């Protein structure tokens, strides 16, 4: 019964979303307060209903209820409980339900936190959110219903794709979806503004925190996905320019641009129309990502099923929302008033440059991702656009952006002094240059890229610190005063510095792994030793082991320094999942400082040896540590109190608060 109740809750949620989509928007048009207020309870109830529905599905997974088609296709009674739960969204139907759950979650958040928004703006925003939910719930019900039943029920399920049975899967999709779907709020605000024909001052204050929250989650989702691919796929690669990865990178680039342009809009009321357009584009890229991944247009781990009706359906949703919103933009953008003016050399100017480069980079990635699809559709030829294309186009675009990042926060609003800022950044520049020279002389004299890239990363980190130092006046005023000022700095300043430093760290990680990595591939038998980067790795034993739903051959390696110092063991395994008859590799990873030793097992050779691949990956952890620091920076910035919306309150109360602050 719980399953059918979950199914019914989803259907009911669709009906309610219809109401949420129409009544508040009609109310806003007619200026009828009562009708406008319907959006709020509808959004909250919708969240409750979809949460109920999702819980019912999870429950069916936990109980191995194979009378549910989706559970039978993707679960197995022997699977550990954790993977039964995460299996709920490890498949097409369940992940779409998660998508909708997060969508209505954001709708409910807008309803709760938006009580102090102008009523008509809130009504329109919730109406647009309702429209998106409607489209996706009907998509689920019509083409990918997770509650389809099997009668009679089989006794055993088909198991989840083994490479998805991993803790990474538990975290990666929900984070990614929180990011994707989080941009829907900015989108709804943009559409609401276009419908109303005016941009409130509250608009900018609202769009930024929501975009920031979505951006934090998306950053985390991408980093998590990249780390998961790194340790689970067994080749030690962290980014493959796979179309599916690009599908998540596109909204990230768009979202980063939106974040910065929303900043200009909030502070200076400039770039209003551009920000609206970016909000639309960013969510459109999220939808496009969903389409690419879910339609089965791309074959990869993520395309759980290939079903043309689904593709056509999502394409319809895509055309409706992207086409509709852009048409609305073309029609109504004229009614919005343009904002303040500024000199080219100014904080605004720097942010415009940021936006220009980021949108161009987005377009580049978009072309690289869609071009093969287009070629295949037109001529039938299958081509693949891989890393070389992106390295040659995306790299040269994004590197100059990274070079100028430290200048941005130091420039003054409206009109800045580039020369003064350069002087202030002199130390940071010197530090970057020194590190580049050191890398060139001490580490690798053949790779200029390694030296320059590491220097660039250091320049970014030091540049971010310089911003903090200068804003707190360290070195100019007494240390005590400087410390007082440092503590008093707005959190958004720390957020900016952290996020920019994080980018620097990630850059160092990426550059050093791609240029300085060393690799050994050799056939080994127990007792043999191989040397890599100053470490000896001795193959100790190969033993069979039986897990809950797999069997594996575990290889134990003993790691010592060349000097003889023992470093402990590394375990690497080849797994075989019996239900799906599928082998996977479990890499053995040993973190030493910021670098990692990566051991992965290949096939057995006829003479009884086993192929072992060993990589030395210098500074590789910085890639994800940097992302983590970016996320922390975003969170710090999000916690800044001035991002809150100014609410109209009784005069006395507002004044009292002003006095306290």
């Amino acid at each position: 019964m719980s399953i059918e109740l979950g199914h019914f809750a989803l259907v009911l949620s669709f009906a309610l979303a219809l109401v949420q989509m129409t009544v508040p928007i009609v109310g806003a048009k007619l200026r009828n307060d009562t009708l406008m207020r319907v959006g709020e309870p509808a959004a909250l109830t919708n969240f409750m209903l979809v949460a109920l529905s999702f819980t019912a599905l999870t429950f069916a997974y936990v109980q191995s209820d194979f009378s549910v088609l989706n559970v039978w296709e993707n679960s197995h009674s022997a699977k550990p409980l954790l993977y039964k739960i995460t299996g709920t969204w490890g498949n097409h139907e369940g992940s779409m339900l998660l998508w909708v759950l997060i969508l209505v979650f954001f709708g409910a958040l807008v309803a709760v936190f938006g009580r102090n928004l102008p009523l008509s703006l809130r009504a329109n925003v919730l109406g647009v959110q309702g429209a998106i939910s409607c489209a996706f719930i009907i998509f689920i019900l019509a083409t990918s219903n997770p509650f389809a039943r099997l009668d009679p029920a089989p006794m055993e399920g088909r198991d989840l794709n083994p490479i998805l049975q991993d803790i990474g899967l538990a975290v990666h999709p929900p984070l990614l979806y929180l990011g994707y779907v989080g941009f829907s709020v900015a989108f709804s605000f943009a559409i609401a503004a276009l419908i109303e024909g005016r941009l409130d001052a509250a608009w900018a204050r609202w769009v930024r925190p929501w975009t920031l929250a979505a951006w934090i989650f998306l950053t985390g989702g991408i980093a998590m996905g990249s780390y998961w691919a790194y340790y689970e796929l067994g080749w030690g690669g962290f980014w493959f320019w796979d179309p599916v990865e690009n599908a998540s990178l596109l909204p990230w680039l768009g979202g980063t641009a939106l974040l910065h342009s929303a900043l200009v809009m909030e502070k200076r009321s400039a770039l209003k129309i551009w920000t609206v357009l970016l909000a639309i584009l960013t969510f459109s890229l999220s939808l496009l990502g969903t389409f690419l991944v879910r339609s089965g247009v791309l074959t990869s781990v993520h395309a759980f099923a290939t079903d043309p009706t689904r593709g056509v359906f999502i394409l319809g949703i895509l055309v409706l929302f992207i086409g509709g919103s852009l048409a609305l933009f073309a029609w109504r953008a004229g009614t919005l008033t343009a904002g303040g003016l500024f000199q080219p050399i100014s904080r605004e100017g720097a942010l415009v440059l940021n936006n220009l480069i980021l949108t161009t980079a987005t377009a580049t990635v978009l072309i690289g991702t869609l071009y093969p699809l287009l070629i295949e559709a037109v001529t039938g030829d299958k081509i693949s656009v891989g890393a070389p294309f992106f390295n040659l186009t995306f790299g040269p675009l994004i590197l100059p952006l990274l070079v100028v990042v430290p200048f941005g926060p130091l420039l003054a609003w409206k009109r800045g002094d580039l020369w003064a800022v350069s002087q202030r950044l002199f130390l940071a520049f010197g530090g970057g240059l020194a590190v580049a020279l050191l890398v060139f002389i001490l580490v690798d004299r053949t790779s200029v890229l390694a030296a320059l890239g590491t220097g660039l990363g250091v320049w970014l980190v030091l540049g971010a610190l310089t911003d903090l130092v200068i804003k707190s006046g360290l070195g100019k005023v007494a240390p005590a005063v400087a410390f007082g000022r440092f503590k008093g700095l707005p959190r958004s300043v720390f957020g900016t510095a952290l996020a920019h430093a994080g980018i620097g760290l990630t850059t160092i990680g990426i550059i050093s792994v791609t240029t300085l990595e060393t690799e050994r591939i050799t056939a080994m038998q127990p007792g043999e030793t191989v040397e890599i980067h100053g470490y000896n790795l001795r193959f100790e034993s190969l033993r069979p082991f039986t897990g809950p739903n797999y069997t594996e051959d575990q290889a134990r390696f003993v790691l010592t320094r060349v000097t003889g110092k023992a470093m402990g063991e590394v375990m690497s395994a080849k797994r075989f999942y019996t239900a799906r008859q599928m082998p996977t590799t479990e890499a053995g990873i040993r973190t030493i400082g910021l670098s990692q030793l990566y051991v992965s097992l290949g096939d057995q050779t006829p003479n009884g040896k086993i192929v072992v691949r060993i990589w030395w990956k210098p500074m590789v952890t910085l890639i994800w540590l940097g992302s983590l620091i970016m996320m922390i920076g975003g969170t710090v910035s999000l916690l800044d109190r001035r991002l809150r919306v100014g609410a109209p309150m009784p005069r006395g109360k507002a004044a009292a608060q002003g006095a306290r602050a």
Partner: protein
Amino acid sequence: MFWILAAILTFVAAVAVLRPFAVRGGGGEDAIAHDIEVYRDQLDEVERDAERGLIGRQEAEQARAEIGRRILKVSQIAEEQAERQTNQRLTRLTAAIAVLAVPLVSWGLYTITGSPGIPAQPLHARIAEQPADAPIDELVSRAEAHLAESPDDVRGWQVLAPVYMRLGRFGDARTALRNIMRLSGETAEMKAALGEAIVGGARGMVTAEAEDVFLEALKLEPGEPKARFFLALARAQEGATADAQAIWREMLGDLPEDSPWHAAARQALVRSGDAAASSERLGPSEEDMAAASDLSQADRQEMIEGMVAGLDEKLRENPQDLDGWRRLIRSYIVLQRPDAANAALKRGMAAFGRDAPESLELQGFAESLGVAIE
């Protein structure tokens, strides 16, 4: 129960839609007041920044002027502040449509997509219900799917027939046995089994049809014990107990002690009231019980072996199936037939060619199971 909960959910949703209509709105909020409030906050912020020395005096002055300009601009916008005349009829009409749409759309859609009749079937509950049948069910459905594709696979039918008997699916058992005889010729054993299936279908009554089949079995092999046993049972059911007992005694005489039909005949004699037999033994002995469970153990083994043989056969026809070879080798190891596993490995490698990557992979796999080519 389901419908009650569904109705409650619908009610909650309808209430959510109706709530704003029930609560009288507390007057229109003013978008412009909002804007001015936001700008006032920004002014406060500029003051704070200026106090801390984060921005210079001149910058602060400029910012103040800028925000002041914005406030002026907003105030100047003469928004039509005309009283919002709430059209009562329109409001009520919308409320009615909205609140009707919720149950109509949801119940309408659910009748199309839902299956309210199917209860939830958590696995642990199902296993608790039918512990023994659980794995067999699955084997049967798999075998059935296979036979639907290749109905001429005699091994498949041979595997399924006894399983159907045990599951009480006598009609299916008859089909399976007829298929076996169609494909591999008639034997006494099969005829007798068919007869037993007919008896099972008739709830234990030895019908005339069954009797004919048993007689045919005896024609093919005069001593066939199962046929003799059931023909005796037929006599007993007619009331000719003496005739029945005569046959059973005869079976006790000429069947070896360890034959399952020896025990069955003795039990039948006891039940039919033969004093001599009952004084000999009262009820089934422990040995009988053991024999019976041996029988099912043997049947089970036979079933597994049948499936493995089927796989073996399939690989003869289609040897380019790496996964199939892996499964076969593993099965032979499980059945503790290392020679057969070794032979399968050799055949598999021959099929791919000795130096093909598949062969090497297969060899590696076999070695991991302890099968080595000498």
